């Protein structure tokens, strides 16, 4: 690859790398003019204990029309299967639940965390973007993305501009993205805090459900600075602001109502001849807005051919979920055309202000509540390794294998009665296996 094209690539990537997942795809400017530069990936993600499994195929094609005017097209197809925690807690006896459709039931053995096994989905996502320089120091980019699932639709638009300074050693960027989403839950949208009802026949009316869909709007703004610190070092700092409004509740998540002394789920007996929940379970209810801010920094440094990448992200929001993410990669060249890249990531977050492990029977309902473990105190780490090899024709194969562990904790102030010291969170391990192939057409 010619060095002059690489120089253009470095500048454009430094400039545009800030502009979101859609935009940086445009920024790898090393593609030869008039050719398609194509990245493909197969990803397998599998959680322990027969929980979520995801197989996905992704393709990303970039075409350079000359003068750094670039078109990018992306397509992803995901297939999800497996069981997902419902939010209900483990009990000392077996529990039965009505599934989200309202027309079937599933059961959980004593002492186990209830998992909703009806989780099954296929997701198709597509994106298109355009990027081009204008004036002498500016680059403009714009894109759109859509995704569709059987119960969720997304439409997103994004646009950004970058400006180079100091002989292109400094780049400022500003980007905005708008998302318009529609949630269409199986069995319609549950009434907040309404009780899970008995299962009905195929033509029966499912109780405690409202509209068949709800909307969610997301505004993201990203402001970034990229600075070349020296011949071997590059720094990027991003400030991000995100405002979500509309239906932010998870329509499939529930909370267990428990005895205020024992902390055990209340027992309920469905009417004779009817299948239904054997406890009192309420649909969750989250606020209808969320404002998040984040600071992201990334440093890339070359040590005689080895490349160290370290990143740190701080995020805070008005749901009081504050998180820290620390991530590092070190790429070792192995001979002239292959490399090995270990990866470490650590993540920790505080619980949302309305996170509850369960709800006490007879107590007044809070304004909002969710038992979604993703809103609890959480720690997670990832350990992985990637191997890549360039073929004689200039194409590249790579594969990565990663291990992810997540452990949650319910804050002691939300525990009820004997739950203190006696909680069971839906912790899990997951394996990520990815195969990539990069080629030109």
């Amino acid at each position, binding site marked *: 690859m010619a060095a002059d094209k690489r120089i253009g690539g470095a500048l454009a990537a430094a400039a545009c790398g800030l502009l979101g997942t859609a935009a940086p795809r445009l920024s790898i400017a090393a593609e030869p003019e008039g050719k398609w530069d194509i990245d493909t990936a197969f*990803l397998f993600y599998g959680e322990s204990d027969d929980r979520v499994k995801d197989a996905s195929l992704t393709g990303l094609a970039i075409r350079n029309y000359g003068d750094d005017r670039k078109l990018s097209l992306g397509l992803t197809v995901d297939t999800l299967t497996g069981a997902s925690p419902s939010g209900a807690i483990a009990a000392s006896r077996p529990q039965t639940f009505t599934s989200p459709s309202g027309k079937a039931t599933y059961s959980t053995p004593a002492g186990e965390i209830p998992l909703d096994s009806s989780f099954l989905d296929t997701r198709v996502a597509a994106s298109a973007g355009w990027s081009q320089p204008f004036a002498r120091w500016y680059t403009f980019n714009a894109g759109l993305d859509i995704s569709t699932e059987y119960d969720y639709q997304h439409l997103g638009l994004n646009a950004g501009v970058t400006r180079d300074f100091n002989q292109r050693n400094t780049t400022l960027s500003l980007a905005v993205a708008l998302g318009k989403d529609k949630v269409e839950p199986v069995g319609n949208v549950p009434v907040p805090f309404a009780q899970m009802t008995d299962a009905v026949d195929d033509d029966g009316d499912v109780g405690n459900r409202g509209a068949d869909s709800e909307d969610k709007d997301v505004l993201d703004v990203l402001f970034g600075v990229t600075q070349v610190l020296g011949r071997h070092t590059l720094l990027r700092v991003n400030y991000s602001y995100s405002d979500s409004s509309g239906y932010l509740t998870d329509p499939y998540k529930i909370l267990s109502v428990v005895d205020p002394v024992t902390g055990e789920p209340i027992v309920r007996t469905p009417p004779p001849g009817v299948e239904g929940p054997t406890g009192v379970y309420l649909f969750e209810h989250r606020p209808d807005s969320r404002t998040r801010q984040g600071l992201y920094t990334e440093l890339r440094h070359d040590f005689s051919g080895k490349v160290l990448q370290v990143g740190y992200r701080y995020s805070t929001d008005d749901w009081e979920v504050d998180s820290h993410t620390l991530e590092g990669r070190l790429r070792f060249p192995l001979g002239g055309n292959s490399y090995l890249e270990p990866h470490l990531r650590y993540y920790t977050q505080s619980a949302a202000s309305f996170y509850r492990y369960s709800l006490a029977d007879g107590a007044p309902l809070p304004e909002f509540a969710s038992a979604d473990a993703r809103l609890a105190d959480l720690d997670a780490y990832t350990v992985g390794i990637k191997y890549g090899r360039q073929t004689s024709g200039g194409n590249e194969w790579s594969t990565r294998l990663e291990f992810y562990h997540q452990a949650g904790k319910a804050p002691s102030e939300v525990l009820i009665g004997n739950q203190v010291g006696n909680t069971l969170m839906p912790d899990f391990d997951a394996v990520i296996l990815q195969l990539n192939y990069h080629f030109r057409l």
Partner: protein
Amino acid sequence: MNRKMGRLAGGFAGIVLVLASTSLSGCSSLGVKPWEREVLARDDMQLDANPLDTSLDDHIYFSKEGTSGGRGFGGGGCGCN
């Protein structure tokens, strides 16, 4: 936006402005000349050298953790969170 968020917004905006102004003025001595970009121009020194890995990771963590984003606009458009 509550008071804490307001303070944080002010803090963040301050950090970014300081970085921006530092980069644009005092640190104009930072950086390299155009002919010193050989290392920075390598594919493996690009800030988003592996866009597919990045977007797939963003999607996984968006689905499994309570916060996401920051690097770019990744992970959105999914009913998984």
